[in-house]
C-alpha cells in the first residue's frame, strides 16, 4: 500500500503488512545506498500489529521505482551472499576432508590451533 500525493511522485510512504524489522531494516539499508534517495526510514506503528511503514523521499525520481530498485538490489546482494556462502562451505568441507586424509596418512595428531578471533 502506498500513501503518496498525486502531484508529487518523489516522496511516499509504503505500508507493508505482515512484515517486521527483518525486511524493513534490510530494505532501508539498500535504499540508503542509492544516491537518488534524500531520506528513507521505517517505523512500526504498533508492535502487536505486523505492519511496517517505509518512507522514501527522492531527488525527483518516482519513489516506487526507487523502492523497487532497492528491493532488486537487496535480492541480488542476497543471491551473491548465498553463492559465496555455498562455495565457502564446499571449500571448507573439501579442505577438511583433505586434512583428515593427511592426518590419517601421516599417523600423527597434527593440532591446528586456529585463531578464531
Amino acid at each position, binding site marked *: 500500500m502506498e500513501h503518496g500525493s498525486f502531484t508529487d511522485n518523489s516522496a511516499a510512504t509504503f505500508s507493508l503488512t505482515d512484515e*517486521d*524489522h*527483518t*525486511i524493513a*531494516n*534490510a530494505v*532501508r*539499508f539498500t535504499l*540508503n*545506498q*542509492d*544516491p537518488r*534517495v*534524500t531520506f528513507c526510514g521505517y517505523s512500526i506503528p504498533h508492535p502487536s500489529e505486523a505492519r511496517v511503514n517505509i518512507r522514501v523521499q527522492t531527488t525527483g525520481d518516482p519513489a516506487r521505482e526507487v523502492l523497487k530498485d532497492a528491493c532488486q*538490489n537487496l535480492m*541480488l*546482494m*542476497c543471491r*551473491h*551472499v548465498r553463492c*559465496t*556462502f555455498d*562455495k*565457502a*562451505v564446499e*571449500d*571448507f*568441507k573439501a579442505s*577438511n576432508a583433505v586434512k583428515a586424509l593427511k592426518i590419517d596418512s601421516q599417523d600423527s595428531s597434527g593440532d591446528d*590451533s*586456529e*585463531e*578464531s*578471533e
Partner: protein
Amino acid sequence: MAEGAGEEKKKFSIWDLPDVPMGQLLPHLELQRSRVSCNKDAPIHTESIQYSGAYASMGINNSSRLDRFSNNFRVEVVRLNEDDMEFDMIGIDAAIANSFRRILIAELPTMAIEKVFIANNTSIIQDEVLAHRLGLVPIHVDPRLFYYLSENDQPNEKNTIVFKLHVQCKRGSPRITVKSDALKWLPNGSELVKETRNAASDSSSKPETYTYFSCSQETIPEFVKNLIIPKYPDIIIAKLGPGREIELEAHAVKGIGKTHAKWSPVATAWYRMLPEVVLLEDIEDDLAEELKSKCPVNVFDIEDLGKGEEQL
C-alpha cells in the same frame, strides 16, 4: 582501510595536494565509517554510516554499488559440525547480517508435532503439558519434502508425519521414564478410527481415520532407508508410576518459528562484529612474551625482528 596521508587543515583547495588520495576518505573518517571503537565506558561509532550522501560535501561517493560489494565480499567458515557452525562474513553490513539472523530464527520451516490425539493418559503429567512437551521434540526429517498444511487441507502423506506413543508401567514394577525414542513412526498414517455418525454403513470398507494417506510414506524414496525419528532419542517426555499408561497419536506438520518457537530450526543464532586489536605502540622482548601468554585465545603472535629482539 584508507591509505595515504591526508592533511586536515589547508587554506587552499585540498584537491591541489598531490598526495591526497582522490575519492577516498581521510584516515580518521575512514576509521569512523568502518570500525566500531570500544571506549572505556561504551562503544562509539556503532551506527553504520549508510547514507549515500554522507560525505557529499567532500565529494566522496558513499553509495555502495553492487559490483563493489560483490568484489569485496568474502565468507570464511571457521567451524562446521553437524550441530553448529561458525563463519565470518567480511564486507557486509550489520543490517543484512541481522536480517539473516532473524530469518534463521523465525522464518525457516521445520516439522514439529502440532496435534496430539490422546486416547489414554493416566499419568501424572497433564494432557496439555504432555502435548506441549511433544511439540518441542525435534524431528530428524528434511522439511523441504513436505507441504504446508492449511485449515482447508486434509492431512495426507504429503503434509503430515504421524507418530504413536504407547507406554504403560505395570503394577509392581518400578517407575519408568518415557524418552523420545518411544515415539514410533507410522508410515501408513493414523490408526485412530474416527467416530462416524452413520455406523451402520460400510463395515466392509476401511474405517475412517484422522489422516487420509493415499500411499505409505515408506514408498517415498527419501524415506525408504531412513526412518523418521526424533533427532535425539534420550529426551525425557514423561515419567510413569506403576499402573499408569499413556496412549496417544501425534501429528507433525510444517511450520515456521514465527508462529511458535517449536518450529525454529536453530537453538539460537547470533552475530557479532569481528574484533580487531590494534597495538598503539611497539612492544618488545619480555613484555611481548608476557602479553602473548596472558591472552587465553592465542590472539597474539610474536615475530622476530632479526636483531634478536622480539616484537609483537
